[in-house]
């Protein structure tokens, strides 16, 4: 597709970066993602309305100059709430996803690679898959909320709790998928060859196994973000999440669903924001996968 001329030899990482920035999807995804982050985190510097300020006379308004995205049923500014909510949702989404991936990836690789650990780790996975989610979460709140609030302050404490709650209950599919891939990879010729020249287990995993299981991990990552953002809103209904006046995208979407017929624009914004974030991460992941795949690099896409 591009010219087949061999580029001069470069370091591996600069080559990957070169590959990545020529990937149209990745570029669009990356720009979009940065844009969302910029709006959400820098936006409040320009749009200074308080997300929790109630202007009761201005409730249920459509888009106006004073409130470009309209207001909610208590007269709170939707734009300000979208930005404040985005900060939390993106932070929770990314961290919880990263935690779930790290846990699941680690478990999966270890279980798939070391036969001896396969049994115990997979039974542990079975156990976690079987535990009923809601009671588990309720127990976590009961045991840890006050300690965490006391140590890290109420908001950071709850943030940790939510991230750990989501991460600890969503790593299992990733672990099983990664393990299955590792089981198959382990028997491939190149791995056998690498082993015969005496590559250590650590080297084997980092150099040969991990790059080859990147695509399912990327898919897990994209799906994981969407999941974490939505799960967060479900948690706040249990009283496990942030204080009730604290906006997040999932909560905004949920609150707005009741008003779907009367004020459809109110569901539109959080729905759009979540979708765009997930899409941008998806394209980023696609680009990263392509860039890291040695074969696509050779093909010179």
């Amino acid at each position, binding site marked *: 597709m591009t010219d087949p001329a061999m580029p001069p030899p470069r370091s591996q990482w600069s080559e990957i970066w070169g590959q990545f920035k020529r990937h149209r999807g990745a570029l669009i995804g990356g720009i979009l993602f940065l844009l969302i982050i910029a709006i959400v985190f820098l936006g409040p510097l320009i749009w200074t309305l308080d997300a929790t300020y109630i202007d009761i006379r201005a409730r249920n308004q459509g888009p106006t100059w004073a409130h470009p995205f309209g207001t909610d049923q208590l007269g709170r500014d939707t734009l300000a709430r979208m930005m404040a909510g985005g900060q939390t949702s993106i932070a929770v989404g990314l961290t919880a996803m990263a935690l779930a991936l790290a846990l699941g990836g680690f478990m999966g690789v270890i279980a798939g690679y070391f036969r001896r650990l396969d049994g115990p780790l997979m039974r542990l996975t079975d156990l976690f898959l*079987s535990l009923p989610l809601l009671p588990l979460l309720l127990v976590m709140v009961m045991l840890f909320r006050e300690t965490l609030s006391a140590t890290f302050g109420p908001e950071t404490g709850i943030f940790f709790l939510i991230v750990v709650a989501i991460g600890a209950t969503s790593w299992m599919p990733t672990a099983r998928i990664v393990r299955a*891939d590792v089981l198959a990879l382990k028997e491939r010729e190149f791995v056998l060859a690498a082993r015969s020249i005496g590559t250590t287990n650590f080297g084997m995993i980092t150099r040969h196994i991990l790059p080859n299981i990147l695509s399912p991990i990327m898919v897990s990552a994209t799906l994981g973000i969407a999941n974490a953002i939505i799960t967060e809103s479900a948690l706040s209904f249990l009283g496990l999440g942030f204080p009730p006046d604290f906006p997040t995208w999932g909560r905004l979407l949920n609150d707005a*669903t009741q008003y779907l017929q009367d004020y459809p624009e109110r569901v539109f914004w959080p729905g759009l924001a979540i979708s765009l974030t997930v899409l941008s991460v998806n394209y980023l992941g696609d680009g990263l996968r392509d860039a890291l795949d040695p074969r696509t690099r050779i093909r010179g896409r």
Partner: protein
Amino acid sequence: MLTYTIRRLVLAVPTLLFISLVIFLLLELAPGDPMANVPLTVPPDVKEKMRIALGLGEPTHIRFGKWLWQFFVVEPMVLSDHILGTTLAEGQQRVLSWQFRSPVMDVIVQRMPQTLWVVGMSYVVGILIALPIGIYSAYRQYSVFDQVGTFITMVGYSVPPFFSGVLVIVIFSVHLGWLPSIYDTTLRVTSWDTFVMQFKQMIMPVMVLALQTTAQISRYMRASMLDNLGQDYVRTARAKGLGETTVVMVHVLRNSMIPVITVIALGVPQIFGGAIITEQIFKVNGLGQLLITAIQANDLPMVQTVTFMLAVLIVAFNIIADLLYAVLDPRIRYD
């Protein structure tokens, strides 16, 4: 292979017993009270008497032992009585729900039809749509089809059912008036008309659920196909002059199925776990609704039984998945 299978099955027994214990202890520890739904007008001492009548006064290990006995001994006897007409279970106490004061199993059996019709069907539909989308998207990576498919599935996955479900109800039930918004669990399909009614009430919940399944499985399918399409053996196969269809649909597909099988096997037990939000929105009242109302009402025998049955399915399907890996890729060995 056979020894591995047997070993796994034997090992499943202690695993499941351990899981049942962990679930029991978790439910014990979880805050909540079966009297939470009783109005505040009922005085506390009356509530305490009701708790004792439920058996909550007994120590934890005795209640766990009772549950084990009732679930593993009495319930199979009831089943045998039902099928073979024996009278083994006469006079034995079964696992009783605290909400209904009736045998837990009877209610679970009652919830099966709508759960299988709606949740099961949506899973089948989801997989049937997802596989071709995933395969073709990977084969024609970055084509218009791939881009559109990616867009729709990702948006579909980002939009939770609590929103998409209400949206389709507003469109198809309120504005167009084509489909019922409330699922009738008492409907029995006996004629063409009732079949049409059943079909109509199933469309919306099945589609809302299938969207989630499709998104998930098609992404894994696509990613896995992409990995394999770049492999050397594909080039070799093509060079040998094999037809494109054979190469893609036989060789590549077979090797790409491993993660997909994993995801599908993880999803099957969830069918029986029901779809909590979708069931609630469409009033399907399947196993998902049963489980969530039981959790809310702190109906521990019901929650314990349903989650344990799910655990059995989870363990079973993970064994099946492990065995299928070896079938798909003979190089994978467990022995």
